[in-house]
């Protein structure tokens, strides 16, 4: 390994540090706790996790791929709007969506109230689905997480050569058949990436599961740690969760095993949108409107109604400070994370050695680990480092600089990098995979250096995946809660922290304004992203 690769390796391991702490916990097994958990709750955790993975996986694939296909291929009323509106649910923290749907659909909510009035029945005399249940959790996660699949698959569909698709049709295949046999297989790596991201987030979800009373690993981790007071046992449960993540990643790799589809982009025609009319247009509109309405319009309206009740908040300067904090923290974290991801992904492409690949895979697993576990995994190494620095500084300079990492923004940024690296890494990777190795070879034959290839060939081609990665991380950081809660400095709050404090005190109306603000702040980058993607497609079409 040369020096550059060594540095790359070191950074990847550093990012994987909290996961190493989790894995190391297995060296000191708490047999007592583990045996007890195994006999009582673990089978249930596994059962629920498996059901969630299958159901949410299926749901986000259906929603994400169908909408991505309609938006990238057809011209129907409102598609321009919908192309970015479909991303909006991304800005909603899952647990906030869960709260809004509960207040709408629960027995005390307006929907069941109207049913009772119309049919003059009482509670218990009619059937109504229980929103706070495993099924409810599946519903909420599907409508919140499908944008990952939509976003990544849409760019894949847009970048696909129409030549391939049209050849299929010329050869007599029907539209449907060409979709199944050509477009879908070509997009498979992108779909797999999106679904994996959605499922990793599913495994890490705590807020929704806790509120809906669904017992899974995350709720079990908290319970074992806080309730039984066994931090080691809790880390070991997290290690068990890691097994799920590893399986997930292996399935993803397997699903794209021979699928390294590089396309000759220069030779392709830009996709021609096919106009739809009549019932076909109506169907396409319905397919695209449904997730927007369910995932954004309904919950956002509820938030808006709550915020109107608490209108005085908008005049408080402190509230705007929260917004400002959230925004710059998110931007900074997104820049750092995406730079890291680009560096790592690029390094792996150029030096695909086994240890480096392993280290980068490790670095990319943080997304499925609950933020709190990452935070705790970071606390001890950071504090150790701090205490060493203080000791040395006191010895040499007789000066105590205080804690430099722990409890500062640096710790937060570190945690965000760990947690969200995989979001940007996967997005950047799926972009890099679209660039043929022959392009590198050609550039190199023409005498371009590695750096020059990156700047002149790759970066321009990677513009849209990089932007997508930036925005995904930005929005994710703005929603992030557990790690922010533990690692933030004194008197430093974000919108998510405020929304959570109010919601966990069951003061939903007070949680409305900060939650709405997360959505509003998240909207701007989402619209920017969509614009950038479109202008790029237009340019390609000129």
């Amino acid at each position: 390994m040369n020096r550059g690769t060594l540095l790359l390796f070191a950074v990847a391991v550093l990012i994987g540090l909290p996961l190493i702490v989790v894995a190391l916990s297995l060296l000191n097994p708490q047999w007592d706790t583990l045996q007890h958990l195994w006999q009582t709750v673990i089978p249930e955790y596994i059962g629920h996790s498996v059901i969630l993975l299958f159901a949410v996986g299926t749901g986000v694939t259906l929603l994400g791929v169908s909408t991505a296909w309609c938006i990238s291929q057809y011209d129907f009323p409102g598609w321009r709007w919908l192309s970015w509106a479909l991303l909006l649910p991304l800005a909603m923290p899952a647990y906030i969506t869960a709260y809004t749907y509960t207040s709408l659909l629960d027995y005390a909510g307006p929907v069941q109230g109207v049913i009772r009035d119309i049919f003059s029945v009482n509670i218990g005399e009619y059937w109504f689905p229980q929103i706070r249940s495993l099924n409810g959790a599946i519903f909420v996660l599907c409508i919140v997480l499908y944008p990952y699949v939509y976003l990544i698959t849409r760019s894949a569909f847009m970048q696909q050569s129409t030549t391939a698709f049209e050849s299929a049709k010329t050869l007599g295949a029907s539209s449907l058949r060409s979709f199944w046999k050509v477009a879908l297989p070509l997009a498979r790596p992108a779909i797999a990436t999106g679904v994996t991201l959605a499922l990793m987030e599913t495994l890490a979800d705590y807020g929704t599961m806790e509120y809906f009373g669904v017992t899974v690993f995350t709720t079990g981790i908290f319970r074992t740690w806080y309730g039984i007071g066994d931090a080691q046992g809790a880390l070991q449960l997290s290690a068990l969760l890691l097994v799920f993540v590893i399986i997930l990643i292996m399935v993803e790799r397997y699903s794209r095993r021979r699928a390294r589809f590089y396309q000759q982009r220069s030779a392709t025609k830009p996709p021609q949108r096919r106009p739809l009319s009549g019932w076909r247009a109506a169907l396409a509109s319905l397919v695209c409107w449904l997730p927007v309405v369910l995932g954004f319009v309904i919950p956002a309206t509820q938030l808006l109604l709550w915020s109107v009740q608490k209108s005085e908040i908008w005049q408080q300067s402190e509230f705007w400070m929260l917004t400002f904090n959230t925004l710059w923290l998110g931007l900074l974290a997104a820049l750092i994370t995406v730079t890291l991801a680009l560096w790592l992904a690029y390094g792996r492409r150029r030096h695909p050695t086994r240890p480096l690949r392993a280290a980068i895979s490790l670095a990319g697993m943080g997304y499925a680990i609950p933020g709190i576990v990452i935070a705790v995994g970071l606390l001890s190494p950071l504090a150790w480092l701090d205490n060493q620095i203080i000791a040395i500084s006191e010895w040499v300079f007789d000066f105590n600089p205080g804690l430099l990492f722990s409890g500062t923004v640096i710790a937060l940024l570190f945690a965000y990098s760990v947690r969200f690296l995989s979001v940007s890494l996967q997005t950047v990777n799926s972009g890099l995979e679209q660039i043929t190795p022959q392009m590198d070879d050609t550039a190199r034959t023409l005498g371009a250096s590695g750096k020059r290839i990156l700047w002149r060939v790759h970066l321009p081609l990677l513009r849209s995946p990089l932007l997508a990665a930036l925005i995904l991380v930005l929005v994710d950081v703005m929603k992030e809660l557990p790690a922010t809660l533990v690692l933030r400095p004194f008197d430093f709050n974000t919108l998510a922290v405020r929304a959570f404090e109010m919601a966990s005190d069951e003061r939903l109306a007070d949680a409305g304004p900060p939650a709405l603000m997360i959505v509003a702040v998240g909207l701007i980058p989402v619209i920017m992203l969509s614009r950038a993607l479109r202008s790029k497609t237009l340019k390609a079409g000129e």
Partner: protein
Amino acid sequence: MRKFHSLLAILAATSATLVSFTSAAAEVNIYSARKEALIKPVLEKFTEETDIEVNLLTGKADALLARLNSEGENTPADLFLTVDAGALHRAVEADAFQAVSSDEINSAVPSHFRSTDNLWFGLSLRARPIFYSPERVNPDELESYLSLADEKWNDRICIRSSNNLYNQSLVAALIEHHGAEKTEEWAEDFVENFARKPVGGDRDQIKGVAFGVCDIAIANTYYFGHMLNSDDAEERSAAEKVKIFWPAQDKQGAHVNVSGIGITKHAKNVDEAQKLIEFLVSEESQKWYAQANYEYPVREGVEWSETLQQWGDFKQDDIEMDILGENNGDAVRLMNRAGWR
């Protein structure tokens, strides 16, 4: 260039936050599991009266404790504040507190609401009684927590998940009073009586009674207080359909938990920290602190809020708070086995 400017702005903002809490004036730093809105006003009052700056970090008790522990002797935290006895106990186990000797504090806080070695002090009490629907339940049928295992309550009880620390403390207390074996038998039958799988928070259980999903609920009183005084007319009218029953009045009394505070072992501002505790147990702050969240003041002789007075006087379970913490792990294991999710 524009990009560069915005980057500069970000960096400036970052360093501003980094530097802002290193100023040299008299200050005291708190790690608090109590939510910002429920403590900040009283801290501001303290600063106004004493000129001591207070820096606050809120979060979940155990996460804050983990941070406190790993920061070790260089921790900036002078005080650690929690909202239940279990977390206080775990802080004691982790050797995170130092003893405080202040007559002023000792005379304000009754001995069973502070640790035996004066490592921590209770600030307010949270009662967890039974709630019932006067339409469908005759209060004469109600008795104690244990009697809720009776068959007649089958399908009639709402209670939240056992992830909730107040349920854990309640079972920890029952273990102490009735023994582990009897409590486990009770839990098995009690779970059978649930009207639905445990979902939602305490307010949801009270609403469950109001809307007829169940006839009985167990919840903390302050949620009920918030509902009765809510801006939302529907929530008020729901709460008005529900009544409080104080259980076990001829036995150990109704279960109460404590929110408490202690000075950290490696506190740098011990004097200021002690001043703050003294301020928090003073009559005036006790009144505000309890009223802000419809809790009971820990100091005797402090006037209760109007809402609390309406619920009437009751016998409190005066179990040592340390025991709640000690039994907490056993309580969770017991609930795991009994199928209380």
